[in-house]
């Protein structure tokens, strides 16, 4: 009889959180699994850049299928899959949150692939009224329509997990929701946006939302005091994102992540390494990823790679879909040269 690998929750249960906490980069351990070893010859990482002109269900389904096939997706059969969208807030006239139509298309795709359980989970960071936000975002209706769980990570049961790289006093350990700890597969589905404090926000920054507000507050200010680049790297080094899909059908430029303006790009950026996906999405936005503090730091600590030569982009060429997002003056130096 083949023994199934333990889920993260089982690791916590069997070893106990204190034992788990004592293990650097323990079994949930994402940091090590996510990391990519040093220099290589030829691309190690694979990212799909897929055209998707609008949020029509057929276009979304086709784009997700194409991107999934041409990247290195996780095996979701019989797995508990958690989808983490980006919902810092909801507005009727600004595309702040990941479009629910994309999330729904992903849910259907995962169902077709045989996922055992699908959970949509978010821990909003400004407004803690999740009942209202889930309703206004369309996620509540989606969860009812498709029979999936909708979890508010801000008030989930939590367990402490030691950071793989606890350099700061504020994040020696992370309190993580059981929904995240028990996930077999974690899929980050961020919106392609500029960010007033981080430059851009994509898959790695989206992971701020897995930390529970009841422990970190709203707007998760502990992470700001700890330093945004360091916090992003510590979270992503501790918790593995198995796959990322960036909603670049319509993104947000200018004064994001909340007060920016819509920017149509018409793409999805997909892949199994969050840093490579973010670096590729940054290039689509006309941003040099090496100039984005947290991406450069993530590259340095080997959470993947942001270098062009390490990433095979499958599908569209970046130059063909590049849409230079309006950057606020503080981040104008992030702009990548053309050509």
């Amino acid at each position: 009889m083949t023994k199934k690998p333990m889920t993260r929750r089982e690791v916590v249960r069997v070893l106990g959180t204190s034992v788990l906490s004592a293990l650097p980069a323990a079994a949930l351990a994402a940091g090590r699994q996510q990391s990519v070893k040093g220099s290589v010859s030829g691309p190690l990482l694979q990212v799909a850049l897929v055209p998707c002109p609008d949020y029509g269900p057929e276009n979304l389904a086709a784009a997700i299928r194409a991107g999934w096939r041409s990247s290195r997706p996780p095996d979701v059969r019989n797995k508990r899959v958690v989808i983490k969208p980006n919902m810092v807030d909801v507005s009727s006239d600004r595309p702040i949150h990941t479009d629910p139509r994309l999330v729904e298309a992903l849910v259907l795709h995962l169902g077709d692939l045989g996922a055992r359980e699908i959970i949509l989970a978010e821990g909003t960071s400004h407004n803690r009224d999740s009942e209202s936000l889930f309703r206004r975002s369309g996620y509540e209706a989606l969860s009812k329509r498709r029979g999936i769980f909708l979890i508010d990570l801000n008030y989930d049961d939590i367990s402490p997990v030691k950071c793989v790289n606890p350099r700061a006093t504020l994040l020696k350990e992370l309190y993580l929701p059981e929904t995240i700890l028990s996930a077999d597969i974690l899929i980050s589905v961020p919106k392609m946006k500029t960010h007033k404090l981080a430059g851009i926000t994509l898959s790695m920054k989206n992971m701020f939302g897995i930390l529970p507000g009841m422990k970190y507050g709203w707007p998760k200010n502990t992470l700001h005091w700890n330093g945004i680049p360091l916090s992003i790297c510590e979270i992503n080094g501790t918790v593995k994102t198995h796959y990322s899909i960036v909603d670049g059908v319509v993104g947000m430029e200018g004064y994001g992540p909340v007060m920016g303006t819509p920017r149509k790009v018409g793409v999805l950026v997909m892949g199994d390494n969050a840093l490579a996906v973010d670096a590729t999405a940054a290039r689509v936005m006309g941003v040099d990823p090496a100039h984005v503090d947290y991406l450069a730091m993530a590259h340095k600590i080997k959470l993947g790679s942001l270098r062009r030569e390490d990433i095979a982009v499958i599908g569209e060429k970046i130059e063909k879909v590049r849409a230079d997002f309006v950057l606020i003056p503080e981040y104008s130096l992030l702009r990548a040269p053309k050509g």
Partner: protein
Amino acid sequence: MGPIKPMPNLSLARALDFIKANQNPDGGWGYRPGGDSLVEPTGLCLLALKAGGDTAAMAKGRDFLKACLKESGAVGINPRDPEGSWMAYAALLAFDALGAGSEESRLRDWILGFEDASSRFTPADIKAIAGDYRYDASIRGWPWTLNTTGWVEPTALFIIALSRAGVPLTEKRIKSGVDLILDRRVPSGGWNFGNPYSKLHELEASVMSTAIALAALGAASVPESRPAVGAGIRFLTLSLAGDISTASLAWTLLALESFPAGASQAAAIAARLAGLQAADGSFRRNLFETSLAFIVLSDTAILVRTPGKGR
């Protein structure tokens, strides 16, 4: 302020039964049935039980909260939390209501010493924050968690708890907290988490933040003649025309009951809130929301005692 007339479609007894049925073996309550016990839902459930007169369940719940009280007097989110946090407000309300004098006194002193990061800001920081977010970062309030900035909701929750526990409104932390709330108002009315602006952009108010902020100002006897209060009441009144969550509706009832200009809407809001009760007696099967709804529908003075009124 005070008891609201019974509504035919509401069963406070069933709400209480739901709360009692979902007490954890450790005496506390989680946000959802079977969830780990936490201080905020436990504190509110205890207030509801006290109002309903159930002493056996109360004793176990009080013991859970006592186990959360550290040597320093701090209370975190649960007994294992190494730090004090915002949830201490609910423990103070419960200790006060249950007559746990010594615990109440230690926790009250800790809360009065629970600092935000305002003292760590340099003059340059304060100037930069004033430029970008248009608030005065030198005003002391309360943070959600240790070593971080003061925000509207934790400041308001601590004002509500301290004033309910009898701390004089002249106490400097309460006065400063009121100043923070007034300073952080969104110019067009109401409050959000605590940033009125972000650079040139005025940020939107939210119902929950506004309702909790207004309830705190009511508890601190800030008159409705203050423009921020009037604008907040108008924001809530307008918001009632739309979709509002269960918790926000409960806080809104508490907030509007705290001011004469809002009190006339209380009966309608109470009826709307009562209409959200599920057949099992709960509100969304959430123990915090069920106990909060129970409290504001039975007697808002359990949380906010307006001078000269209520208990």
